[in-house]
């Protein structure tokens, strides 16, 4: 236990400060080919007449298209039973601006750009969909092969739903219904190191993959599946990431580089430009959240109805998982005994969205905290006291019926009140996370209690 409580030096501190940390782009392999992508110039289209012949005829240039991929569709969460819906390279349809269609490797960056410029295809543009609220309209364009929203939650449900307690009774008993709509926007992760990958075909038949991935074993599985190779044919070198923030969880470059290394027999490197990073890399999802709470005049929240539309972009990727996490946290740090939550993973013609720092949870925290303040405002109650009253306590249960054993809501809010100099009445100033009793265990919270010992 030498490190606990001590100030330990960073294991990579001196390497960073001397410029010797070897990021993926810093790996020097002679004879490496540069990689560039021919991408969809439109948001939604059927594609015909893809012609890579002029590029492929250029000196030293290698091109891959969907035809070169042994398993074209493999989902990032296929291993968890979430069906694949995204081709590695577009075949006959494009569903977002910047979707990769053909990838080239050439002896120089200029030659790679020239090869991309020599690739042509015809795009018959279709109406695109960008607003999740319009995805359910009868006249909305159907933009995904399976419809406009994901339909493969457990028992092939088309939504993630949570039911707890008796929501109708809660709304019948309410003094007031407080509603709000919350719509945090997409956010680009913007790591200073753009997506980058190098793949070296080794003499022993293996591929060595230098990857900036945040999720090495994910990427290894995804590459192996698309290439239909056993894992022992891949050696993935990772662990040095020039910023990720969730944006390097998707396997953005490794598979295509591996295919080009196989096809050319040469080492290849793909470093996205800053423009590609902004236009083509996945973002944090925009979310649409509608909340309606049944509240009493004295500040209890009896029930919550919530609808979430999670903008997945053009394909599923990790979104079903993100929405699931979101649903488990949809009461935030507070105990609400009666719940009706419906959440949909909605497809749009945006770049597919992905994890970012608290995948699915930051969005709902924004909604729930803003909503708590709104309730306090409408009731004329101190917003700290409203939060403390409804705060998760030991033995309270989460939306998915897990009993809390060590909830931190109470000490956190007390610390905030202290930090900003907010005076609390003695009833709240001395509050602890201990199990509810007395005035803080009203009848409506009795039924939701669980056994923290059993967890």
């Amino acid at each position, binding site marked *: 236990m030498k490190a606990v409580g001590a100030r330990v030096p960073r294991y990579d501190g001196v390497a960073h400060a001397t410029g010797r940390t070897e990021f993926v782009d810093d790996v020097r392999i002679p004879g490496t080919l540069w990689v560039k992508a021919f991408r969809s110039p439109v948001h939604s289209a059927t594609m015909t007449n893809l012609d890579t012949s002029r590029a492929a005829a250029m000196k030293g240039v290698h091109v891959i298209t969907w035809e070169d991929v042994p398993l074209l569709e493999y989902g990032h969460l296929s291993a968890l039973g979430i069906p694949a819906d995204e081709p590695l390279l577009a075949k006959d349809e494009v569903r977002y601006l910047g979707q990769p269609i053909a990838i080239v490797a050439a002896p120089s960056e*200029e030659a790679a750009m020239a090869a991309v410029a020599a690739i042509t295809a015809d795009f018959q543009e279709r109406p695109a969909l960008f607003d999740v609220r319009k995805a359910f309209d009868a006249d909305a364009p159907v933009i995904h092969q399976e419809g406009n929203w994901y339909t493969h939650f457990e028992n092939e449900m088309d939504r993630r739903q949570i039911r707890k307690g008796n929501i109708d009774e809660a709304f019948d008993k309410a003094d007031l219904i407080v509603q709000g709509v919350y719509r945090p926007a997409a956010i680009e992760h913007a790591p200073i190191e753009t997506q980058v990958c190098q793949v070296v075909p080794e003499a022993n038949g293996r591929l060595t993959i230098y990857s900036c991935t945040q999720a090495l074993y994910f990427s290894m599985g995804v590459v192996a599946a698309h290439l239909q190779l056993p894992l022992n044919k891949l050696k993935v070198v990772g662990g040095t990431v020039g910023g990720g923030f969730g944006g390097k969880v998707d396997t953005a470059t490794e598979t295509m580089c591996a295919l080009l290394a196989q096809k050319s027999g040469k080492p290849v490197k793909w470093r996205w430009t800053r*423009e590609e990073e902004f236009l083509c890399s996945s973002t944090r999802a925009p979310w649409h959240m509608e909340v309606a709470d049944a509240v009493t005049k004295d500040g209890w929240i009896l029930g919550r109805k919530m609808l979430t539309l999670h903008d997945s972009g053009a394909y599923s990727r990790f979104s079903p998982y993100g929405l699931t996490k979101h649903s488990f946290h949809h009461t935030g740090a507070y105990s609400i005994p009666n719940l009706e939550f419906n959440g949909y993973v909605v497809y749009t013609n945006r770049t597919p969205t992905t994890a970012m720092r608290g995948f699915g949870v930051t969005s709902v925290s924004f909604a729930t905290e803003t909503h708590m303040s709104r309730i306090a405002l409408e009731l004329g109650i101190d917003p700290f006291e409203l939060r403390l009253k409804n705060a998760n306590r030991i033995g309270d249960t989460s939306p998915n019926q897990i009993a809390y054993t060590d909830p931190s809501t109470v000490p956190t809010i007390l610390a905030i009140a202290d930090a900003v100099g907010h005076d609390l009445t003695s009833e709240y100033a001395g509050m602890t996370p201990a199990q509810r009793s007395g005035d803080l265990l009203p009848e409506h919270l009795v039924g939701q209690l669980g056994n923290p010992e059993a967890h």
Partner: protein
Amino acid sequence: MASEVLMPSSPSEAVSLFGDGAATTVIGGGTVVMPEITYGRLAPDRVLLLTNAGLDTVAVDGDTITIGATTRVDALAELGIDGLTACAGNVADGEIRSQATVGGNLCVGQGHEAPRGDLQGALLALDATVRSTGSDGERTESLETFLPHRHARLVLEVNFTRPAASAFAALEYPHTHEYTVLAVSGTRTADGTIRLAATGVAGPGARLRSAESAASDPEAAGAAAVNDVTFADDSLASAWYREQTLPVLVRRVLAQLEEST
């Protein structure tokens, strides 16, 4: 890659090599052209690289100031003209300002998604003249008449008279590398003449003549300024937002000029 890179070693050689300017890409500091080449948006056949052309001299003769085209943006601060110092200091960051040139800033085109050429406003307000060369040889003209055909000309020098007072006001922007959303420059000459100009509006920088006429009444001047320019929507701001904020910046500049009486 460019097939031909020319590096003149004197102003006269630069004039001669530029010729009529046809199919010639000029690089001053490189801050505008280099990303275009790197990203493959520009593949120039003939490049004039002005590093050693001797166009970076700054001459101060009494109140008359002449600055060479490749004078670095950050060197303008040394002239001690408040409005010009503030305007130059609002360009990008320290490293960019020490590399980018005045000539490049005046000649730069419309950005990919936003107006560029921050110095145009300050130099318009200084009623600067530009000596340039091109298809009909050398000529000296006002910056205002120069700007519409700036892409076909090689700037040699910029000339102006030190004002009695000068000022600059810009909308703040969230990051140092964003282009100016909207900025107003103003000067007052010894005889009391007020000149105002804006950048961040559609097209290059523009004089605000209606606002100048009403300068004695800042409220009226601000209101009049919106008639002097056209506004555009872009990635930085909407035309509506610019229209609402231009009068505010005009009033701020006039207030600064008033304070420096």
